[in-house]
Every structure is written in C-alpha cells, then in structure tokens.
C-alpha cells in the first residue's frame, strides 16, 4: 500500500469533510459528527501509512506536487504539497494520536450538548494541522497555520460561558498572532527576495541549495545575512505557536479548554506545528539564527521545568512540562540536530497525549477536580488510568531504556553536548532533566498515592472503555516508539541521511540516568514517602523555600510583567495617538471645513440670485405638463387597452397608406 504524493491532499481533506458534515448535521447529531470525525481520522491514518510507505521507499527525495494557484502580476503564485519522511512521520503521528483523542472525546464529551460542534472543530483542527504538515509552500503552510490558530481559538474557548475560557482563547489567539506577524513578515521578505514560496521545486525551491546560497550571500543591516533575518522572523512564528519564551504565556491558560483539546494542542497539532516549521525550514537557518534558537530553547526548557515544580493544577503541570519539552526540541534544532527534535516531537506527542488523556480521565472521574492537592489515592479505583499514566510519566521523566522519552531526550542532550558554540544550553538541559523527573514524581505521588483527600476523589471510578482504550494504545506506543531509536538509530538515517551517526556517549547516558534517578528519588522523598494528609495542608517544598515557590507558582510573574510593560506601553501609545488625532488632525480638518462652509455661502448667494430663476421657470412648466399627462393615467385597464387598440389601428393605417405611396 502506498499513496503517491499526488493524492496526499486526501489526508487533510478527509477531516475537512468531516468538519463539513459536522457543521451541517443538526444539533442532536453527535453520533453522525463523531462517527464522521473518527472515520476520517482512521481513514486518514491508513492513508498516512500509505504515504509513509511511499516516503520510506525514497527517503532522500522530497516528492512534491505543485500547481499554480493564481497569477499575481509578475509571477504565478504556486502552491503544492510535499511528501518526505518527516512529513510522513508527522502525518502518521497526527492521524494516529488524533484518532485516539477523538475516540477519547466521545467518552469525555458525551454529556456536553454542543458535542457535535466540538467534533466539527476538532476535525477542522486536525485538518489544518495535516495541511501544515504536507504544505510545500510557505503560503499554504501559513494558511493552514492560521487555520490551526482559528481552530484552537474555537476549541480553547469551547466553554465560552466560562469567562476564563473565553479569556484564555483570546489570549492564545492574540499571543500567537504576535508571533505570526513575524512569520508573515518573513514570508513576504522571502517572497520578495526569491520570488517563490515553494519549499522544494526541483531546484528552484527556497530550501534548495541555490536559493539558500543566494540568501546567505545577501547581507542586510548589521552584517547579518538575509537568511538569518528571515529565519529569525519565521522563528518568531514558531515561538508563538510552540510556546517558547517569551510568548509561552498562552499555553498554560489554554488548559481552560476541554481536556481532549489540551491533549490535541500539546501532543499532536498546535505546538508541534512550530517545531515542525523550524525543522522544515532548517536548511534556511544560518548558525547565527541557530544560536538564538538554541538559547531560546534552553531558557524555555529550564523555565518551564522550574515553573512546573510549583504548580498545583494537574493540567497546568503538564502544560508547563510541554513548554519545557518544546524548549528541548527547539534546543535540539538550535544545536543542529533537527532529527532529534523531530524524534522527540514524535515520542513526546504520544506520551504527552497519553498524559493529558490520563489527566482527562482523572478529571472526568473526579468530577472536574483538577487540583492535585484535592486528589490522591486514585491508584485503587482507576487501575488502567494509573498504569498508563505511570508509563507516560516515566516516558516524560526519561526513565531509561524501556521508555521512548529517554531515547529522544538522550539524543537531544547528546547533540547539545556536541555543540561547539557553548555548553551553557547543555547544562540548562541537564538541570531541566532533574526537574522534570522531580515534578512528574510529585504529580504521580500527589494524584495517585496516599489517600483520597476530597469527596470527589473518594468517589472516583474508572472511565468508560472509549476513554481507557485510547490510553492503553497510547501507553503501548509510548513504550514501543523507543524502537525507532533503539537498537539502531535508523530514524536518523531516514530523516537526514547526510548527517553522520555519532556513536558512543555512554558516559553521557550514565550521567543522565543518574540525574533522572536523583529527580525521581528526591521527588519521592519529598512527596511520596509521606503523603499529604489534607487538601489544605502546606506543600513540603513550599515550607522550606517559600519565596521561590511562590514566585514559581505565579509563573515567574510573566503575566504581571507583560501587564506592567507591554500593556502599559500599548496604553501610552494609544493615548498619544488619541491626543494626536484629537488635537492635531481634527483641528486641521475643522479648519478645512470652515473654509468649505464659507465657500459654500458665497456660492449660494450667487447661485440663488443669479442662476436659478431660469431653471425654476422651466421646471415649473415641466411639472405642469406632467400633471396634464398624468390625467390620462386613470387606472382604467379598459381604457388603456382601448387606447392601445386605437393606436394600433392608426399605426397600421399610417404604415399601409404610407406604404402605398
């Protein structure tokens, strides 16, 4: 089974159709909408497997199918899709994880009366992401990118009757829009300088050596290469979408959406888009740009892990862990190993989806209680959720050998270690490893161990099969995906045959195993050995270092910082603009108006006295004539008909008599 690139557009089309079906089904048609959505994703998964088979047959080739969209003055705007291993892997991942999340949603959302719209939005979301993946044109990618943003807005704000959800949706939308502005600028600049937006076009694409060399050769301000600037602008988009520092603030708030949405955003679709974008445009990135990316990634990884330590909301912890892991991926790209980034993206997608769905299962079971201090003791009633969640946690924490997260994280650390520019990111990454293991252990200990601390968690019960089956499948995948990297790093070969496989690194592996052990051990020592007694009892760590924890708990005061700086600046600018408008421009306009009125006055005087007399007389007489004629308009149909008949007779007579002559 293989799917040629010419038909790869079918994969995003299917969920789009499902979204269309969902849009037109009546309100009660949840069954139809969900069946269409899941069916589209499952079918898309099979097609994606076909696409993967096609891509793996020729791993080095970037199979493309391009077509002209419309003529644009000088040139033709062309769009297209590309099918190479990276895209194919992403397709499989997105459809697979997406399908499982959809199935999970049927269980999670079955009580919601707008569930049908939910599936419609989900399908749109997945469709847009698949579009991003297969796009062979920065423009097409941008279109789908914005659709992803739109769908995320709709989904995060799905429960818009909650003010927090509405605010979170708005925040996510606007924050990512800031990044998208950079992406748009970069795209325009790229089109201006190369005349094309296609990635691969038989030697003419922007990612192919000719164009890249051309871009590298052009210098703009400050001695920077043009490609550096464009790359950084595009990176702005990725920063926004992937929640990198400093635009990460929307990501934790996006937890206000339903849990399957969180899972989809964090695992398969939205945040992955940024990393994918950077991996896609990697050939365009110069070492200068990569430095920025690497440091951004490292800072994000460390910051996310630190904040996660002090959070109490189960989903928020996972959200900051996502921020952190995305930082890892960016770090990997920055240090030049985009393969490791993609590998981590794939493994992270599975176990993060697993974790979020597990969290969703917990929340569903505990009657929408999300605070881990109020949970506890769920190990007993929710065995399946516990087991799968534990697998996910271990994968995220990087428990060695058996779990996929270990291998991908190892690959990133290895690449960071080998970076010539600086070792600082490497050390930041190592710190984050410890912290990751620590906070995940805390999460497990608080949620599943100890005893139930509130009424809700006491009465928790296992979720329905439609929720647990995806969990089990994802757990299996979270383990099985380590096969991609072990025993031999064939993913590396397939994705980037040119790169040389670095061997060794056993010492590094031992180091990271030790670090993970430290993290888990300390976490268990603090939270696991003596479990919390009451929901309100103080956090043991906060008791020791209260200031730090409070600062971290407030998410390093980023929101406040932005409120103090960006918003204030914005307000000041707006005030200035208002003043300018009101007193400068308005004054000028009023002056002009006064001049106009005066001219009008003069004009009227001459007009009325001089010119109008004759016209008045003419129109008076015209009106009289009209009145006279209107008397013929009696409304008597007979009269009309009679007149027509007589007129006809007269006409014929005239013609006949005239014809005689």
């Amino acid at each position, binding site marked *: 089974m293989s799917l040629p690139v010419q038909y790869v557009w079918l994969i995003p089309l299917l969920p789009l159709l499902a979204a269309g079906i969902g849009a037109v089904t009546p309100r009660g048609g949840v069954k139809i909408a969900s069946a269409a959505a899941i069916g589209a994703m499952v079918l898309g998964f099979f097609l994606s497997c076909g696409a993967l088979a096609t891509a793996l047959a020729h791993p080095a080739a970037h199979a493309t199918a391009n077509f002209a969209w419309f003529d644009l003055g000088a040139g033709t705007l062309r769009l297209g899709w590309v099918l190479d291993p990276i895209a194919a892997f992403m397709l499989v991942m997105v459809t697979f994880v997406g399908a499982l999340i959809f199935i999970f949603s049927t269980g999670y959302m079955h009580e919601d009366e707008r569930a049908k719209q939910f599936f419609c939005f989900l399908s749109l979301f997945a469709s847009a992401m698949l579009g991003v993946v297969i796009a062979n044109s920065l423009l097409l990618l941008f279109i789908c990118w914005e659709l992803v943003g739109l769908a995320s807005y709709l989904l995060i704000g799905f429960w818009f009757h909650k003010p927090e959800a509405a605010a979170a949706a708005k925040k996510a939308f606007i924050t990512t829009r800031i990044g998208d502005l950079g992406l748009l600028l970069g795209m325009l600049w790229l089109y201006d300088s190369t005349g094309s937006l296609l990635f691969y076009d038989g030697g003419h694409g922007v990612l192919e050596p000719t164009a890249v060399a051309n871009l590298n050769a052009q210098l703009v301000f400050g001695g920077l290469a043009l490609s550096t600037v464009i790359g950084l602008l595009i990176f702005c988009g990725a920063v926004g979408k992937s929640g990198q520092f400093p635009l990460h603030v929307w990501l934790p708030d996006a937890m206000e959406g339903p849990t399957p949405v969180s899972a989809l955003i964090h695992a398969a679709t939205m945040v992955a888009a940024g990393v994918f974008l950077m991996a896609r445009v990697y050939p365009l990135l110069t070492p200068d740009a990569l430095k920025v990316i690497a440091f951004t990634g490292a800072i994000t990884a460390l910051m996310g892990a630190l904040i996660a330590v002090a959070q109490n909301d189960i989903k928020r912890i996972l959200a900051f862990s996502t921020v952190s892991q995305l930082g890892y991926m960016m770090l990997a790209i920055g240090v030049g190993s985009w393969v490791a980034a993609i590998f981590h993206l794939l493994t992270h997608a599975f176990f993060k989806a697993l974790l979020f769905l597990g969290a969703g299962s917990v929340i569903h079971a505990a009657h929408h209680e999300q605070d881990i201090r109020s949970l506890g003791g769920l190990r007993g009633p929710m065995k399946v959720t516990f087991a799968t969640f534990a697998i996910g946690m271990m994968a995220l924490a990087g428990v060695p050998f058996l779990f996929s997260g270990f291998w991908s994280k190892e690959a990133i650390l290895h690449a960071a270690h080998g970076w010539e520019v600086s070792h600082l990111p490497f050390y930041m990454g190592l710190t984050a490893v410890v912290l990751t293991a620590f906070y995940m252990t805390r999460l497990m200990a608080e949620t599943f161990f100890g005893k139930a601390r509130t009424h809700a968690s006491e009465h928790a019960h296992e979720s329905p099969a439609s929720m647990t089956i995806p969990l089990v499948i994802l757990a299996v995948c979270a383990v099985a995906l380590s096969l991609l990297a072990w025993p031999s790093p064939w993913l590396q070969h397939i994705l980037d045959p040119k790169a040389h496989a670095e061997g060794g690194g056993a010492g590094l592996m031992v180091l990271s195993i030790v670090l993970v052990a430290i993290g888990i051990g300390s976490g268990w020592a603090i939270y696991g050995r003596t479990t919390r007694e009451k929901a309100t009892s103080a956090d043991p760590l906060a008791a020791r270092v209260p200031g730090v924890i409070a600062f971290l708990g407030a998410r390093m005061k980023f929101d406040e910082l932005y409120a103090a700086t960006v918003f204030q600046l914005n307000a000041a600018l707006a005030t200035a603009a208002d003043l300018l408008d009101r007193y400068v421009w308005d004054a000028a306009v009023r002056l002009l108006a006064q001049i106009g009125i005066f001219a009008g006055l003069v004009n009227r005087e001459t007009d009325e006295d001089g010119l109008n007399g004759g016209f008045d007389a003419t129109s008076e007489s015209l009106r009289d004539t009209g009145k006279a004629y209107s008397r013929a308009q009696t409304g008597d149909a*007979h009269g009309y008909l*009679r007149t027509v*008949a007589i007129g006809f*007779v007269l006409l*014929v007579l005239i013609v*006949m008599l005239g014809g005689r002559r």
Partner: protein
Amino acid sequence: MILPLVIIALLTIAVAAIAMTLRNLIHSALLLIGSWAGIAAFYFWAGAEFAAFAQVLVYVGAVSMVVLFAVLLTRRSRADLEVAPDAIGRGLGAMLAGGAVLGVLFGAVFATRLDVAPTAAPTASVRAIGQQLMGAHAASLLVVGVILTVALLGAVVIASTDREGGKEDAR
C-alpha cells in the same frame, strides 16, 4: 384541405364569440375551453401535432382548471349581477375598437400579396422538436423553466392568504 379549416375556424370563432357574450361565467369559461380545443384542432390540421397536444394539455388540462377555480373562488357579489351603468357605452366602444382592428387586419391580409408556393406540409416530428429544444433552444428552454417556476411561486404567494399569527393548521 380547405373545408376542415373553414369548419374549424367558424366553430372556433363562434364558440369564442358566444363565450365572450355570455353572462354565466362558468359557461363562458367552458366555451372558451372549447375554443382552445378548436385552436388545438387547427394546429393538428396544420400538421403541428406536438403543439396541438401541448395546447390541449396546457389549456384544456391546466389553464382551464385555474380559470374555473378562480371563478369559483371569487364569489360573485350582488353588484356584479346588475348591469353596470356604463356597460352599454363600453360595449359600443369595444365594438368600435374591435371592429376597427378587425377591419385593419382584414385589410392588411387582403392587401398583402403573400407569395406562397403551395408546398408539401412540413413535418415537425417529435424527435426534431426535441432536438431543437435541447440544441438550439436549450437556453430558452431553461429560461422558460425558470419563468414557469417563478410564476408558480409568485402565483402561490399572491393568492395565498395572509395568516395572522401563523400556526393555524397545527395538527
């Protein structure tokens, strides 16, 4: 050849004339339907079978029903029964106008030299008509279809009663 034409023509005109003078509306309508049928007979005589049957189907079958329904739906008021004061004057005027038109038309017909070569009757087989309709006149056919649809909807809208409060036929 000529005799059937004359018979058809005389019958049709007579029936139409009687229809136009009767006071009983139903009789008028029925007689007029007869004259429509006479026109169909003329089409048949001229070899336009299809037009003849279309005439019968549309006029005798459909328009007649609309007319009869209209007559029945417009119950006659007492004022309709008495002769209007201006009826005689209007009748005279009508006769005058009609006579003038008739005279002019007859004059035109007689005065014009129609150079007709007596040809064999042209045939219009259904197949030929169908090909014309679907070929050269396809656009007109579509337009007529649209006109009919719009007219139907318009007629329904015009003739339907304005419902106050909407739901009066709730089951």
